[in-house]
């Protein structure tokens, strides 16, 4: 159980729930400060730039297990499945009768010999997951690198902003669905148009948030940097980039969501594999249990990928007492 995947997932979960725990009743409406208590008792161990130790993770895990929030979360998820069971399996009222039954879907998912050929134990399941993951992460990576670079240049240099903002602002509102034909015409093969469309959704969000992040940096930090004799490049690296990070990561979280959204749209229209493609295919062939399995899988990976972005952000911004929003 020490595989990297397991570590990422358990870490994501622990962080998500720990985040909830830390949102105490300090002041309503404001994301509560992690470690206010630590700060009072001996001036913050959590904010040492050395980083959180294993011990602190242990403490967090203990808190997690002790707290009622964990059980509330489990109960919330359980309630969803109970309702599914009641409406579809048990009563079968109204059009719910047309939906795949909970028991049937779970059995299909766990079966070594699934009726429709897709379960935890089939290679096909992982083929679709892998196809989608590769697309999302390559598109997201390109969008992150390009988006942050362009966003920072726009915030840093007026001339660059003047040149790029009007055109970007014109392209941004064009819905991803409207880009599909152009992507297919422009990009060769089946794979590149899908990645291109997935990239596009994340790209604009990342640019805009990075730009806002640079703009939101208090001018006093630039004055301080000048007065301390920092060059323009040093200001870029030590003031602009770290100063814009909080906004950048909010942008990246939204961008990750946008990636999954446009991925599925692109896969439905032009794919031959992938989770979005599979949802559509199973609908077409009336393999409804597999359809909901695929949907749940999309949800799961959407959650995990967003958690990865959030954890990365919080690790890069240990200096902040506030954590990135989202669970």
């Amino acid at each position, binding site marked *: 159980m020490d595989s990297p995947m397991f570590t990422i997932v358990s870490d994501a979960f622990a962080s998500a729930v720990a985040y909830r725990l830390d949102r105490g009743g300090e002041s309503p409406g404001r994301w509560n400060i992690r470690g206010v208590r630590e700060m009072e008792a001996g*001036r913050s161990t959590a904010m040492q730039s050395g980083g959180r130790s294993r011990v602190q993770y242990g403490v967090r895990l203990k808190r997690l297990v002790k707290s009622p929030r964990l059980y509330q979360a489990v109960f919330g998820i359980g309630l969803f499945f109970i309702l599914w069971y009641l409406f579809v399996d048990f009563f079968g009222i109204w059009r719910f009768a047309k939906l795949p039954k909970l028991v049937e879907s779970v059995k299909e998912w766990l079966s070594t010999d699934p009726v429709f050929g897709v379960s935890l134990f089939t290679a096909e399941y992982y083929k679709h997951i892998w196809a989608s993951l590769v697309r999302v992460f390559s598109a997201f990576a390109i969008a992150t690198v390009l988006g942050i670079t362009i966003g920072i240049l726009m915030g840093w240099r007026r001339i660059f902003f003047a040149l790029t903002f009007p055109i970007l602002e014109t392209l941004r509102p064009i819905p991803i669905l409207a880009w599909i034909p152009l992507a297919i015409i422009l990009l060769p093969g089946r794979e590149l148009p899908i990645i291109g469309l997935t990239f596009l959704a994340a790209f604009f969000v990342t640019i805009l948030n990075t730009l806002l992040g640079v703009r939101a940096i208090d001018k006093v*930090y630039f*004055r301080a940097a000048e007065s301390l004799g*920092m060059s323009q490049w*040093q200001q870029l690296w030590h003031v602009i980039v770290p100063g814009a990070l909080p906004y950048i990561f909010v942008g990246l979280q939204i961008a990750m969501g946008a990636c999954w959204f446009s991925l599925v749209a692109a896969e439905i229209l032009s794919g031959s594999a992938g989770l979005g493609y599979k949802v559509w295919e199973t609908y077409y062939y009336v393999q409804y249990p597999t359809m909901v399995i695929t949907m749940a899988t999309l949800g799961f990976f959407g959650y995990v990928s967003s958690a990865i972005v959030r954890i990365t952000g919080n690790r890069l911004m240990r*200096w*902040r007492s506030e954590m990135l929003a989202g669970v």
Partner: protein
Amino acid sequence: MENTGALSIRNAGKIYDPEGIHVVAVDDVSLEIEAGEFFVLVGPSGCGKTTLLNVIAGFDQLTSGAINMDGTPLASPGKRLRPGPDRTVVFQQGALFPWKSVLWNITCGPVKQGRISVEAAKKQAREFLARVGLHGIEDQYPEALSGGQKRRVEIIRALMNDPTILLLDEPFRALDALTKSVVQEHLLELYDFSPKTVFFITHDLEEAIFLGDRVAIMTTRPGSIKKVVRVDIPRPRDHRILTSSRFLKLKAELGEAIHDEAQKAFEAGERELA
């Protein structure tokens, strides 16, 4: 390094929006600040003190007059010497980089200018920190510090930069009275340890007399100099001087002048609101 940082302000004036509302922020201010002097400018809120400091620092321009430091022009109408490490500012609202550790903040000036090695800077930083009773905070982020600790760290950051003149813009404004008195003593200790020309702005008269070699009173807007007094209380000073007869006499003398200005500022405020 001796005898540098003499600041000469001649007939300095600053008008905001000369074509429109025409707000005179600084009006015909002339001051000669000696090299190595701790000079304090006192005045009511909104009198143009900060404007004057910003002009010296290079953040703003003059509309009349001229400012020179050691014979080098800093500001005259339409011209300014860009901000630089020779005139380091400690800001009213605090400007420690929250994303960097305390030690990084303190050492960044000399290190980024390439004047000294990181190791030498760290050693010097620890000496400064120890001098004002700050131990074991080097690796923390500024957000984990108390208000008083932040101010001390920021003053040390400015001193590490070894400026020709140190500009302090109401640095203790947000502190409670007890913390303030401690940090004031620490500032004096640092000043005695590493003497340089200091230009300090405040609206607190006691603070001004306690810290300064000379205290100037600025009138309410348009800001001009009403009175300059030499504080002939020997250094090193500590808070016992606050009750000395010499201190109380100076306070009474300057208190009269500052009170008039505060009253005028208050009435002007009332008029603007009416």
